[in-house]
C-alpha cells in the first residue's frame, strides 16, 4: 500500500472532521437546535474516509440516510452542512432537505437519501452516464447491510454487472437494520457473498481499518476506471450511536458497544501514524484544534444563517414553474 505521508494526514483530518461534526450534531440535536431525524456516522468514519480517499473531485458518490460522513469525505462544506441540519437558508438544500438529503453536484455528491436502498439504481445510472460519455470517472455507492435485502440492491448490481458499469458498491455492514440485527434480517454473515450472483468480485474488509478500506476500494476503483466493471466491497463496522438520535438501543446485547469502542477507527489510525513517524503528538494536537475551530465556525455559520423565507418553499420543485403560495 503506497500512501504518501501527506495523504495519510489528509485522511486522518477527514476522520477527525467527521467525528467532530457528528459529535457537534449530536449535541445540537439534544439541545433542540436540529429538528427531525438525525442518523449519526460515529464509529464508521474509516469507511467513508478510506473509500473517498481514492476518488477525484469529478467522481460521484451516492449516499444514505446516514450520510454526513460520506459527504464530508467527498469534500462537502461543513458550514453548508451544519446550516442545513439547522434548517437554515444557507444550508446545502436551503432548508428543504435536512440531514437526509444533502447533495452537491459540483463535488459529485448525488445526494444522501431517505429511502433505504435508493442509491443502488441511481449509482448504476451514474455509471451509465460515465460509460456513455467515455470518461474514466467512477461512482461509489454507499449503503448499509439492511439495504441489501431491497430489490434495488439486486437490480442495481445486476445492471452494473451486465453493462460493466464503473460503480463500486460499498456496503457498510454495521450489523443492524434499524433495530434488527443482521443475523435476524439475512441468512448470510458476509454480504460480499452476494457478489457471486452478479459475477463481480466481492470482498469483505475490516471497516474500522481505514487502510483496509482504502486498499480494497482503490483496487475496485482502478478496475472500474479501466472499464472492467463493478465490485462489491463489504466493510464490517459498527455505529456507536443508535439508528437515530433518541434511539434507546435496547436491542443491543450488553457489552457489544463496549467491544466495538475498543476498535474505534480513529485511535487506531492515530497509533499507526505515530508508530510509523508520520505524525507527531504536536501535529495531532494542532489538527484537533484546527478541526474544533472548523466545527465552531460551521456551528456559528448555522446559528447566524436566517430561517428560509416562506416563499422559498415554492421554489426548486421544477426548473421553470413556481406554484402559487398561500396568504397567511
Amino acid at each position: 500500500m503506497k500512501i504518501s505521508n501527506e495523504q495519510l494526514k489528509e485522511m486522518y483530518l477527514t476522520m477527525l472532521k467527521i467525528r467532530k461534526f457528528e459529535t457537534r450534531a449530536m449535541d445540537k440535536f439534544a439541545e433542540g437546535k436540529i429538528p427531525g431525524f438525525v442518523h449519526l456516522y460515529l464509529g464508521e468514519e474509516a469507511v467513508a474516509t478510506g473509500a473517498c480517499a481514492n476518488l477525484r473531485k469529478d467522481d460521484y458518490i451516492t449516499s444514505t440516510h446516514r450520510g454526513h460522513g460520506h459527504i464530508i469525505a467527498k469534500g462537502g462544506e461543513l458550514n453548508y452542512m451544519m446550516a442545513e441540519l439547522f434548517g437554515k437558508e444557507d444550508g446545502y438544500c436551503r432548508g428543504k432537505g435536512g440531514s437526509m438529503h444533502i447533495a452537491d453536484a459540483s463535488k459529485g455528491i448525488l445526494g444522501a437519501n431517505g429511502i433505504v436502498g435508493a442509491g443502488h439504481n441511481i449509482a448504476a445510472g451514474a455509471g451509465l452516464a460515465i460509460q456513455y460519455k467515455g470518461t474514466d470517472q467512477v461512482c461509489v455507492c454507499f449503503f448499509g447491510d439492511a439495504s441489501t435485502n431491497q430489490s434495488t440492491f439486486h437490480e442495481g448490481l445486476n445492471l452494473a454487472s451486465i453493462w460493466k458499469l464503473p460503480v463500486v458498491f460499498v456496503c457498510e455492514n454495521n450489523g443492524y437494520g434499524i433495530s434488527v440485527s443482521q443475523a435476524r434480517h439475512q441468512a448470510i454473515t458476509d454480504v460480499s457473498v452476494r457478489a457471486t450472483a452478479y459475477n463481480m468480485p466481492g470482498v469483505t474488509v475490516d471497516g474500522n481499518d481505514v487502510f483496509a478500506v482504502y486498499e480494497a476500494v482503490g483496487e475496485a476503483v482502478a478496475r472500474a476506471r479501466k472499464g472492467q466493471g463493478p465490485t462489491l466491497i463489504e466493510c464490517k463496522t459498527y455505529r456507536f450511536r443508535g439508528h437515530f438520535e433518541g434511539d434507546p438501543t435496547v436491542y443491543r446485547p450488553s457489552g457489544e458497544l463496549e467491544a466495538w469502542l475498543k476498535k474505534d477507527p480513529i485511535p487506531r489510525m492515530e497509533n499507526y501514524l505515530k508508530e510509523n513517524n508520520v505524525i507527531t503528538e504536536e501535529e495531532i494536537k494542532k489538527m484537533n484544534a484546527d478541526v474544533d475551530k472548523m466545527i465552531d465556525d460551521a456551528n456559528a455559520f448555522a446559528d447566524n444563517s436566517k430561517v428560509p423565507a416562506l416563499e422559498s418553499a415554492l421554489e426548486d420543485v421544477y426548473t421553470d414553474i413556481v406554484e402559487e403560495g398561500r396568504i397567511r
Partner: protein
Amino acid sequence: MRTMTYAEGIREGMRKKMMDDPNVLLFGEDVGKFGGCFGVSAGMFDEFGDRRVRDTPISEGAIIGAAVGSAACGLRPIAELMFMDFATVGMDQIVNQAAKLRYMTGGKITLPMVIRLPEGGGVSAAAQHSQSLEAWLAHVPGLKVVYPSNAQDAYGLMVTAIEDDNPVIFIENKTLYAVKSEVEDELKAVPFGKACVKKEGTDVTIITYGKQVLDAMKAAEALAKDGINAEVVDLRSLYPLDKETIFKSVEKTHKVVVVSEEVKRGAFSGEIASLIAEECFYECDAPIKRVGALNTPVPFSMGLENYMLPNDKDIEATVKSLF
C-alpha cells in the same frame, strides 16, 4: 398535409431529439432489436446502435433509477416501461427520487428525463396491463405529465418532453398506436400547458385527453345531429394544466363533462371537475359531470372490458342528461 400513426409520431419525436443531441438515449425492456413491445422504437436500434438504444433487464426499478442517475450526471434519458401498470414496481424511483431530488436538494440536482408509460385498456390485457393511473402521477409535485391524443401532438410533446429539464411522464395509449392522423408537413414542438380546442362549440364543453378525445369527437358528431353543439377540449398536458382554456370554454358553454378512461374513483377527471367548481362555479348552469371507467379492475373478457370502460355512447348520454 400527410398522415402518420401515433406510434410514428412518438418515434419521430425521439429520433429528432436523438439526432439533435448526443446526450439523448432510450432504454427499457425490449426497446432494442425487438423495437419495443408495441413497435414504437422499431428501427431505432439499427439507426442509433446499442449504445443509445438499450435493452434492459426486466427490472423497472433499475430502468427508472438508471434514468435518475444518468440524468443527474448530464444525460437526457428516455426510459420506457412496457406498460404503465409496471410503474408500480419502479414507483419509489418515480415518486421519491425523480420527482423530489431537485426539491430536497434545494435545486442542486437537475433531472432532464422522460418516462414513457403506455396505458389504457381495450386490448383484453386484463387488470395488470390495462390501467390508467395518471392521477397517481399528476398528484406528485416535481413531475410533469403529458398525454397526446394524435400523431402530431405525440411528436410535438415528445420533443418538448426531451428538451425539458424536469422529469416528464409521457403517457401513451396502446389502442392509439396504429391510429393515423393528419400531421403538418413540417412537424413542430408542442408546448406544455397548452390545451387544444379540437372542436369549437357553444352548448357544452367536453374536457378530455388521450384516447377519449376520439370518443368525445364521435360523441360530439352524434350530439350535433340532435342539435347540441359540443366543444371538445384536448388537455394534452395534465401538468402543467391549461386552466385558461378550460375556464374560457366553461364561460362560453356553461355546461361541462369531463371524460377520462380512469376508474372514476379518485380520478384526475375529479381534479378538473373540482377546479371548475372552485374557480368558476357561477359560470355553470348544470352539475359538472364526469365519465370514466367503472370502479373495478379492468376485466379480461371483451364484453366485460367494454362494459367497464367508458365509450362515446356514455359521453353522449351524459351530455344529454344535462339538457
